[in-house]
Structures are given as C-alpha cells and as structure tokens.
C-alpha cells in the first residue's frame, strides 16, 4: 500500500515539475478577493497560481524546510518581510516595479502591494477636539489618557511594526518609557483584533483605540452586519503625527523567495499585482490604500480623509530590523 502511494506521489511530483507553468505562493493574506485576483492573472497569462495560506510564522518555517518550492511570500506586514529577508533574493527590480512603487516601500527582495495606515479612533461624545489637537503616537502615553485607551496585544505584528518605527525615530530608551505609559493608560488588558478595539470605543469601554484604517471601512460597508455598521458610525478616525513625520504606514507586500523555481513567473505576478486593474480590485475589496499613483481608494476610505500626511521618511525596512527591540520593550513594560 505504502509503496503504491509512494509511487503515485512520486509520479505526481515528476509530472508536476515537467508541466510547470506555474507560480507557488505562500500567503499570510488569505482574502477570497486575492484568490479572484490570482484567477485573473491565470486567465491573462496561462500561469497557474498555487497557494498555500496560513499564519506567517508557520509559513516561513515551511518555506525554509521545504526549500526550493516557494516563489513568492505574501504577507500583510513589512516587518515580517524584513525579518525574513535572509531567505529572500533580489530580483524585484524591473522598471515596472521601480516606477510603480515609492522607494521607501520596497527593496530588491520585496515590494509593497498595498498600503494601510495605523491610526487612532475616538468617540466624539467623550473626546474633544482640543484633546486631540496635535496628537502623536508618542503622546498616547500621556497620563491624560489614563484608563481610556485600547490597543491589541504586544504579540501582534502591526503593533510590533508601529513600535519599531517609534524606536527608529525616538530611540529604544524613550520608547521603553513610552510603553510603560501606554500600559498604564489601557482601559483593559489587551485582547481581540483591531476591529474589536474599534468596537470597544463604540461600546463605551474606552475613549480611543489604535487600529488599522481598513477595519473601519469594512465595518462601515455593512459587510460585517448592520450592528457593526451602526457601531462604526459612532467612532471617528484621527491621523496622528501630522505636525511632524506623518502617520505610520505599513504595507501588504510580496517577497521573492531564495531558490524560487519559477522566478520569472513570480516577477510577472508581482508586476500584475501592481497594475491598475489589480490595484483597483485590491482597494475595492480590502479597503487598503493603493500602492501606485492614479488609483483611488474605495469611497469609504476616501471619506475617512485622504489629505493626511503619510510618514514617508521612516523606511519600512526598519520595521523588520527593530522588531525584536520592539517586542522587548513592550514585554518589559508588561504589555500583554
């Protein structure tokens, strides 16, 4: 029995390799809309897209252990790509890519596909304009927010990237102090995802929350049900650090894996993801910001405001480099 299975698997394996006009993706982003996008790519180019999805950590391990299978690693955080850079290879340097993506959102090994901002949400009933004026990520640790703030746990990668960018801009020592201030301002012990933070503000559990931009739009769209749509209307977005470097930006991105068996196809797929058609599809389904110029975000995202200053000076590659430091200061401060 086992011999038969072995032989059959070997046969599939050999045929699989002979017939390969394909590209193998390991994706930590698994929206159904991404799958539709891959289908469009296949229809256009004839290249079959194979996907295995999962949580980023486990995928990274499998990419390494399996060796020579993965072409692209797609994830929703720059810090992840940065930390995995040793297992990625250069090659994402075509003119299409370089002209489409601003230089702080790419390296030769990985490029951003879409952008998201990590911002503050507040309850207009309980937070005044005066309180918010000049709000920065740094000033969230101010004692005036004591018992009024909700944010996710420290093991969350979006938080790690945000704190990494703060360390890059302020130094580790200051951010260690800041983390302590954050912990003492928390309205509750960190729990739930970004959407749960926004809902906590709507429900009156807290006055301000830190969460990514697309979550509010998702709730406002009604895709999460009428209750959450109504709840989302009770909170307002605020873009921090407008007086200095700008609001913290993160990316969904794709990295070219070392030893990729279908390198050319992988590059073609990245170029396709950066095309106008694909970008429109992404922003309309995931409510992220487009990576390329000339594509408008979803109207609900436009309503949240587009004229804010993005932090384009802190290179996103720092999120990966400072990730360990970020986790260290948060844990030391007792940030669960």
């Amino acid at each position, binding site marked *: 029995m086992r011999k038969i299975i072995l032989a059959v698997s070997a046969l599939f394996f050999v045929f699989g390799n002979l017939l390969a006009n394909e590209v*193998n993706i390991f994706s930590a982003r698994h929206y*159904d809309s991404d799958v539709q996008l891959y289908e469009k790519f296949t229809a256009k180019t004839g290249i079959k897209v194979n996907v295995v999805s999962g949580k980023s950590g486990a995928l990274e391990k499998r990419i390494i*252990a399996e060796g020579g299978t993965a072409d692209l690693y797609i994830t929703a955080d720059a810090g992840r790509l940065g930390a995995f850079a040793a297992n990625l290879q250069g090659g994402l340097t075509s003119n299409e890519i370089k002209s489409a993506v601003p230089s702080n959102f790419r390296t030769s090994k990985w490029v951003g596909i879409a952008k998201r901002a990590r911002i503050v949400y507040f309850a207009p009933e309980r937070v005044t304009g005066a309180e918010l004026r000049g709000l920065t990520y740094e000033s969230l640790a101010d004692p005036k927010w004591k018992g009024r703030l909700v944010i996710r746990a420290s*093991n969350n990668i979006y938080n790690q990237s945000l704190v990494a960018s703060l360390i890059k801009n302020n130094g580790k020592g200051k951010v260690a102090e800041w983390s302590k201030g954050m912990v003492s301002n928390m309205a509750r*012990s960190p729990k739930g995802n970004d959407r749960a933070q926004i809902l906590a503000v709507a429900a009156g559990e807290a006055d301000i929350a830190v969460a990514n931009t697309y979550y509010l739009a998702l709730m406002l769209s009604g895709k999460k*049900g009428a*209750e959450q749509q109504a709840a989302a209307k009770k909170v307002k977005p605020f873009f921090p650090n407008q007086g200095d470097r700008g609001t913290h930006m993160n990316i969904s991105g794709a990295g070219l894996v070392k030893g990729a068996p279908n390198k050319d196809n992988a590059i073609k797929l990245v170029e396709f993801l950066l095309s106008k058609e694909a970008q429109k599809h992404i922003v309309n389904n995931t409510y992220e910001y487009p990576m390329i110029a000339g594509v408008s975000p979803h109207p609900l995202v436009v309503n949240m405001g587009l004229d804010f200053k993005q932090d384009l000076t802190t290179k996103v590659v720092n999120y990966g480099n400072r990730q360990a430091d970020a986790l260290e200061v948060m*844990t030391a401060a007792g940030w669960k």
Partner: protein
Amino acid sequence: MAKYNFWFFSSFLIALIVALPVITVFFSFFSETSNYLTILKNTFLFDYINNSLIILIFVLSITFLLGVISAYFISFYEFPLCNFFSWALILAFAVPGYIFAFSIIAFFENYGTAYSILTNMFGEYNYNPHIPKLDGILGSIIAISFSLFPYVYVLTRSSFFYQSNNYIEVGQNLGLSERETLFKIILPSARPAIIAGLALVAMECLSDFGTVSIFSVSTLTTGIYNSWLSFDDLNLANQISFILLLFVFLLLSIEIYSRKEAKYHQPSRGFKPINKIKLSGKKSLLAFSFCFLLFFISFIFPVSQMIYWTLKFPKYIQDINILKINLNTMYLVGLASIVLVFISLFINYGSRISKSKILNYLTNFSISGYAIPGVILAVAFITLFSNFSELMSENTSLGNIKKLFIGSIFGLVLAYFIRFFSLSFNGIKSSYEKINNSIDESAYLLGYSKIKTFSSIHVPYLKNNIILIIVLISLEIIKELPITMILRPFNFETFATQAYIYASQDLLEAAALPSLFLISWATILIIFSSKYILSQKN
C-alpha cells in the same frame, strides 16, 4: 533466531516510524540551545506553565462535574427525553474546541449576537457593557470543557451501566439513602472509569492548539510553537515539549492503569442490569434541565450560531468552494483510515501468529504518537524530514525528496498515521484478543491456510470493530487542525483549515459555513456509531 522474522521487522519499522517524533523531542532535550531558554525562563515560561495549569485544573473540574452528573442521571433515573440525551450528549464531540470558541466570541463580543438578540427584544440601547465578556483564559476553559466532557460522560456511563445492580441493592438493604449509595458505592466503584476519562480530557486539553490560539492565550503548547517560530530555536521548542510530554506520559500511565482497574472491577457473574428509578416533580425537572442545558450549550448553541451566521452573511456560500473541500476531506479521511486500519490489522495479525512478546512491547511504542500534541508532531515532522532529505541528497543521487514529505498528501497521511496509529492499533487489538487462539488451531486442522483463517474467520469477527475504528479515525481527522494546517499541499483546504484561516483573518462569519459542514459530518459519524460507542466496555 526464528524470532527475528518478517513480522518482527515490519512491526519494528512501524513502531520506529510512530515513535520518531518522540525520539526527536527526547534527544533535543540534551542538545545545546541558545540563551533564549534563559530569556524564556525569566519571562514567558512561567506564564505558559501557569496558564496551562489553570486551564487544566478548571477543565478537569468542569468536565468531571458535567460528565459524572449527566452519566448518573441518565444511568439510574428515568425522566423526560432521558433516552434521547443518552446519545445526544455525545454530539458535543462533533464540535471542536476552536469552533466552540468562534461561537463564544460571536455571541458575547461588543455588538455580537447577544447584543442583536437584546436589541430585537427590548429595542435600541447600549447593552454592551452589561454583556459578560467570555474570552481569554475563561473562554478557553469553557470552550475546551464543553467540547471534551463527553469523554468523562461516555466512560462513566458505561461503567455505571455495567455496575451490577447487586451492589446498589446491597446498599439499599443496609439502609443507605440515595445520596449515601451514590457517594459510598456508585462513585467509588466507577472511579477507575472516571479517572480514565479525565486523563483523556487532560491529554487533549494540554495538546489543544486551536482554542487557545483563537483566544490568544499562551500555554505550554502554543509556547512551544511560538519559540519555534519567533526564536527559530527548535531545540528549545523540543525542550519545552519534553516538559509537556512528561505531563502527558504521567497522565497516560494513569489512564492505562485505571483502565486495568476498571476491567478488574467488572463483575462477570451475577450481573443484574440497573432498574432505573422513575423521577417525578422537581427531581425530574432537575435531571431534565441539567441534561437539556448541557446538550443546549455544548451542541445547539454553537450550531445555531453557525447557522445564524451562514444565513446572515450568504455571500460566503458562493465564495467558498464547498464541494472541493468536501471531496478533499473525504479523500483524506478515506486514504488515512484505509492505511491505518490495513496496517493495524497486519501488525496485529503478525503479533498473533508469531506469538512474540518483544513484538508486544514494541507495539506499545505506538502510543507515543497519540501522546504528542499535533502541533509539536508537525514541527518535529518538518524538521525530521527536512534533515533526512538533506542527508539523502548529500549521500545519494535522489535529489530533493522533501516535497515527497512536506506539503504532499503522502506526508499528510504519514503524519496522521503517526498521530492516530495508537487509536487504530489498540482498538483492533482489544477485539482481536477476544478471538481464542484455539479457533485458529481448529481452522488449521480443517485445512484452512493462514490467509484464509485471517480473511474468513478473523475479519468477519472484527468487522464491527473495524467499522467503529474507521468512524473514530474519521472523526479525529475531520476535526484535526494543526497537522493539516502546517503540512497541507498547495490549493488544498479542509473544513478545519478553511474555518481557522478565515477566523485568523478576522472573518469569523465566513468560518461559519465550513464549521457547519465539519459539525454535520462529525454528527453523522457520531450518530452512526453512537450504539457502538455507548456499548463499549471502557
């Protein structure tokens, strides 16, 4: 040396394969690790152990109460729907802890289902602050308890069932009250069965990965996984696994010992079935309400939450390729159970005709695959075959054979094999041992060949047992999450992985449909086999 024949070597090979992950973990315990162990000792490790212990203690207490009380009511009393509850309470097995976790989150979160119900009943108001937030450790305890209590229920009930009514009559003749009979006679003689059930609960609880990761609680098991992922330190992961394994082996020995005790306590002669006492009034209401609530919370609650979501967000019915996932699941379940049952029969037969004691000891190793938590097995599996194939490609001309093991159906079935061999092997063994050896000898005298003896005497006798084993394996594989998640091939989802992926992407409502299918399949299997499960003598 007739001992070292074909049967010996094949059993040895199977035992070795099944024990590989445990051996890997064992040897890594003595290898060097990075200084992360120190970091871990200072920061997280204590938390991990603490969380694991808190969850374990509460889950054990709750499953003990739920399982024993329901078994007591159902075995000794008659009340409305008591026959229905006797099998309906096992349906909780159809709802894995992680799906119970989705339901809890959906129901209790801000603006969740509880909020919608209150709004529909009493009008608009901010009910959120008044709805209890069941999450974190509390949520994990509840989800795990309600999905595991049937272990205690099934074993305790069958012990009560086979407990001779004689004992109880003796008690009553001695003038003991109902309560005194319960505490002085019924419970003490069911003790081994209860402990065996609790040991199974404890093992499953310690190896839980899905539920606690949905609630973001760090336990020893997720700690192992995380130290592998974030610190890139497999040896460290394996060292923590070793601590966990010590726990598990302790529980396992308790379980095996208790089972032996349970057998010892079974009267063989003078067995009188229990005369159920008919309850009325308040007592009847109490027994009924307890069983009904238990059934409601453990089964109706998660199922209706999933149905509600599926109907509320119909978009996902089109988005999810449910047919393909059904086929994938059937394919996996079919392949794995055929391989498992075939090899289990083969090895059992070998150990029978060769009558070798060494074989018996060897096959005891088979238990190790079940003892090791799925997520750790997957981690060890990847490491092992990654190293193995590097060794092979350096020394032979085979090239890269990793793909054969990692990310292939073959690898997935092999991992299931390691995990569930104990279930299938010991299940068949227990029933094989009941066929008297003299039957074989009579068959030989009648001119039957060995193969004919096997195919026309053993197999027909074992048929019911084999069916039950196939059902149990299928149930486990349908619910299995971490191994499938880590090892599955490209473009391949099962109900469990699809549901978990949606949930981890904050799309709990999309996880409802695959969860519902998973529960339906499992329910069908349970109903199909409930007669066998309930009649098992431990």
